């Protein structure tokens, strides 16, 4: 990339010092503070740092961190990649990611949904990658219809090539605002936020999933050139080639993430077969999907922050004999409002042993009682393991589904596993 002006260089150096200090003092990973310091010195720093690179911006309600990681993994085929792999997904985090890797021509930035228009304008990316939009932390997040509209407007004013999920009506409508798009049929399990047409409000017809159309205004799912077939674990490429996915990350949601990553990597000129080989090397992302072995039991950690995420997590649970721990907090990063627990259908858990934990376990308890799911309450994972081992000494596996701070608490208890 081109040489930075002096002021931008200074900003970048100061930011990196602040980040090192943050890490050295154990206060954080430095992604946010570093960017904040740098921005004070040079407000246009993000634009300057982005110049001359081939960037992909990645946004969605769910799967941003994972998909960013997958795309970065693919692009390392060409060498260094600038990326915010710790999920600091606002402009301060983007500045840190780009400052940390000045020589990388290729970059992948996870972008918070609200910040996408602003970051799009500042960075002039080659690609904008969009997966899904659904209700999430509504006490502080924007309404998603409004968000989709802002995405659509920003994309219409940009030259970026969109790579997006055709099966999510809100995302597709936003992406249709862009001059160029590649559509991926990546699926949509959670449909409760897209029954109404983003263009005119009509009740969408979506009998033959994944197709959808509005009988009132005619808006319809764009034709996808890439497609995931979950039943056969296959990715169909634009030339019709069928490639086995065989990801090491679990579930349909990660098949979707991998397909989107492969379509993006193809935009950079990497053959999908090669991309998939590289993606299979990813086994966990910032602690998500990781397993820790404790007291002789494999404890798998699944992060799920909203109804769509919980639905996906239920789908990857091991067979019914594996117990599950559900943990919910309602701190600021989680959203203070737990109403969304009522949007999820828990009846699929009826056949397994269920434990509820976290600061809002009483909300979960009432929710499970209402769905006729027997459960027990607990304070900690090791307490659950103790109880399970007392009843079944040969127990080998437990799944944990937790929302953001509950997940981080559990992860920290096991040494911030990656």
């Amino acid at each position, binding site marked *: 990339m081109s040489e930075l002006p002096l002021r931008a260089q200074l900003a970048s150096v100061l930011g990196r010092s602040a980040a090192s200090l943050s890490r050295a003092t154990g206060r954080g990973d430095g992604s946010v503070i570093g960017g904040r310091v740098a921005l004070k010195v040079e407000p246009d720093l993000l634009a300057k740092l982005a110049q001359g690179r081939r960037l992909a911006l990645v946004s969605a309600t769910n799967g941003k961190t994972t998909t960013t990681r997958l795309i970065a993994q693919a692009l390392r085929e060409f060498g260094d990649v600038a990326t915010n792999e710790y999920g600091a997904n606002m402009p301060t985090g983007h500045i840190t990611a780009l400052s940390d890797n000045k020589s990388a021509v290729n970059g992948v930035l996870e972008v918070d949904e609200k910040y996408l228009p602003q970051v799009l304008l500042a960075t002039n990316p080659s690609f904008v990658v969009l997966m899904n939009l659904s209700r999430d932390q509504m006490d502080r997040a924007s309404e998603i219809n409004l968000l989709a509209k802002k995405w659509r407007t920003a994309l219409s004013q940009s030259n970026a090539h969109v790579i997006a999920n055709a099966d999510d009506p809100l995302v597709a409508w936003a992406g249709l605002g862009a001059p160029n798009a590649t559509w991926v049929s990546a699926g949509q399990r959670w449909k409760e936020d897209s029954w109404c047409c983003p263009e005119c409000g009509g009740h969408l017809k979506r009998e033959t999933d994944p197709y959808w159309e509005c009988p009132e205004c005619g808006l319809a799912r764009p034709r996808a050139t890439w497609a995931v077939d979950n039943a056969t674990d296959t990715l169909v490429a634009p030339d019709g080639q069928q490639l086995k996915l065989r990801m090491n990350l679990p579930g349909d949601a990660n098949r979707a993430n991998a397909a989107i990553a492969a379509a993006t990597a193809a935009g950079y000129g990497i053959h999908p077969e090669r991309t998939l080989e590289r993606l299979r090397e990813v086994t966990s992302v910032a602690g998500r999907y990781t397993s820790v072995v404790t007291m002789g039991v494999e404890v798998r950690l699944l992060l799920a922050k909203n109804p769509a995420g919980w639905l996906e997590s239920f789908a990857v649970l091991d067979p019914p004999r594996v117990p599950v721990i559900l943990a919910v907090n309602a701190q600021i990063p989680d959203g203070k409002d737990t109403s969304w627990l009522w*949007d999820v259908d828990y009846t699929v858990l009826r056949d397994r042993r269920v434990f509820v934990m976290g600061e809002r376990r009483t909300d979960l308890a009432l929710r499970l009682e209402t769905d006729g799911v027997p459960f027990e309450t607990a304070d900690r994972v090791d307490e659950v393991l103790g109880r399970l081992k007392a009843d079944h000494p040969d127990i080998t596996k437990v799944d944990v589904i937790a929302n953001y701070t509950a997940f981080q608490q559990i992860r920290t208890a096991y040494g911030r596993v990656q």
Partner: protein
Amino acid sequence: MSNTSSALRIVWIYPDLLSTYGDQGNVLILKRRAELRGIPTELVHVHSSDPVPEQGDIYLLGGGEDRPQILAADRLRADGGLARAAARGACVFAVCAGYQIIGESYGDDESNPLPGIGIIDIRSGRGQTRAVGEIVADVDPALGVGRITGFENHQGRTAIGPQARALSTTVKGIGNDDHTEGAYQGQVLGTYLHGPALPRNPQLADLLLRWRVGQLNPLPPSWGERLHDERLAAALR
């Protein structure tokens, strides 16, 4: 809707437009608290492209974003079924965006007044600030419900006309106007306590059931009562 006359007919209006904050919770809890008492229920989901049946017992309307709210109001006005049911004396329980549209008028995102369904004498507009957070309120003693808690997230402010009464007096939070929360008129009841207002306040769920079936057998306290007490303590701490 099949007319099994003995069953309590619960009609969920437009889950495709008005179901933003766990509104399904209200449906599930009404059904459960009726069935625990041996009262059979029949649940009807009415999509925005379907006509609203007029022979329901309890109609539920949930919350929604600005645009779905306007669509829902327009469709309900054009359909007319909900207004006819309310005129017949049916119970209507509406939260948040649903609460605003059952009134005489409500405001769009630019504060322009839009016509509501007009089954309760309230008028809503937009306030200067967004009301977000836990809310606590004391319900009109005439209803025998006591103190309720919930979560509010709205920019609306609601004025209550002479035909309706305030549902409650605000102890914490904003509600209608910083002083009162919600409104009722006959068996039409609305509140800014969004989403699972009935799961969090079992006594409010029982009020609606009592309106339809008369005296209710008491139920042993369970997780609903525990959650109510826990949230109340947390909100007032």
